[in-house]
């Protein structure tokens, strides 16, 4: 009796990130973190997605961000994930970079896991320049900054100069 069959499928693709993401990745390759501003609501997306999801219009204006960010949320990963070279326990966090209004997910390190908290200030630690590629992994991780915490209601409203946006 046949109980199972193997039917492998291979589909080859030439993936394209999209025009706005391509601009974002090209800047990352140069060691610059950028966002793009919605012409309608002025919110800055990082990474940009091609449009402001709230307004449904394209985000053309490029905004240079600092490497500083605020922890919006985080989790401590305790289980090993197949194929992931990072040894648990480690922290992945939703971070809002200064100058942007929307968070992205990245790693945190050089921190005491149990002391990571919402509103904590962090900064990007970049890989050596010779390793830079068109990839978010140019930033190895974020590490805590010795700066006062940000109140929850202010997260996502901090300019690149530290002032509110």
């Amino acid at each position, binding site marked *: 009796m046949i109980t199972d069959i193997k039917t492998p499928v291979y589909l080859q693709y030439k993936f394209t990130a999209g025009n706005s993401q391509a601009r974002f990745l090209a800047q990352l390759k140069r060691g610059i973190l950028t966002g793009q501003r919605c012409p309608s609501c002025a919110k800055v997306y990082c990474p940009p997605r*091609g449009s402001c999801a709230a307004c449904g219009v394209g985000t053309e204006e490029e905004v240079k961000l600092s490497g500083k960010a605020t922890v919006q949320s985080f989790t401590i990963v305790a289980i090993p994930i197949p194929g992931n070279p990072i040894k648990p326990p480690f922290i992945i966090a939703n971070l809002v970079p200064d100058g942007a209004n929307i968070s992205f997910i990245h790693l945190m390190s050089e921190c005491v896991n149990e002391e990571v908290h919402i509103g904590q200030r962090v900064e990007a630690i970049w890989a050596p320049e010779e390793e830079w590629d068109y990839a978010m992994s140019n930033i190895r991780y974020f590490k805590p900054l010795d700066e006062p915490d940000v109140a929850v209601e202010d997260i996502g409203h901090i300019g690149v100069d530290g002032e509110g946006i």
Partner: protein
Amino acid sequence: MQKIAIVAYNQSKCLANAGGSNEVELIMPQLRAVFGQVGLNNSQDVDFVCSGSCDYLQGAAFAFVSGVDALGAVPPIKESHVEMDAAWALYESMLKIRMGQAESALIYGFGKSSPGELPIVLSQQLDPYYLAPQWVDTVSLAAMQARLMLDSGAISERDMAEVVARSRNNAMGNSLAQLASTVTADELLAEESYVSPLRKSDCCPISDGASAMIICTVGKAEEWGVPYAIISGIDHRIETHNLAMRDLTDSVSTRQAAAAAGAGQGPIDVAELYAPFSHQEIILSRALGLGAETDINPSGGVLAGNLMMASGLSRIGEVFNRIISGDAQRGIGHATSGPCLQHNLVAVLESEQCSARGNT
């Protein structure tokens, strides 16, 4: 029952390769265009949104969800998606309106087929036990269908070449087409065979792009004060996935859908048929009983440019355009899905005057 009207339609150019543009960047210009035609700001101004696409085309998981970024979905909107051509998103939207849950709807379809190998990708829509594991591509299946047609004497290779020549020549008037020329059937017949008995010209090109449409109740169209065409009937039928059980030289499902949509209740000035292969246009026009009085695929049809997952909606949109311009009073938009015309949708469109006459 409330009559439902098309009030806006737009399609992108059919491009062999849309380059860096992602789904959002393909969709957004089409949405802007249809909102502009009606004077709306964004999807907040319609009651329902439905899209048609397939993530397998570009190989990007949840591309259809990313597409929602083009809508302006804050505050949240009522939104749905079909993993099919957007002609079926139109069908779902019409049901929504007929159930009284919406007065207006935005429909869009998009496809970026250039990143993958479309004929192989489409093999994965076949039944998963016998055909999909063999990766039978769409061109080979269509070639077998054409062989049946030729060997039974139902068509000649010249008939097929004449379909292609008419498509190429009609497409000269369509700035959105990918393939347009003044080629003759004789010149096409001189071309070498591709997947026998098909020549490359018998097969639709692979195109990137998107199209969008807005429909609403006639009351809403009059409130908006825009020209409209009535969708007087729509129906879709599907045949078995088992190719051996079908008569591939006929399209029973198209005939049934056309009858249920009321296609025969008046003259058909124009028909836009989704025939990805030349011989399939002949199968479809015979199933629909179209004669010399009907202008078939005046846009060039999908042989001139095939936006996978949007072409069906575009066929209906092309008929809408001709009714709005006054070139036609009544027409058929047809969409297909699956191998060898497995699944077919027929929409009957009428001008306001034509629809009013039908009611008296």
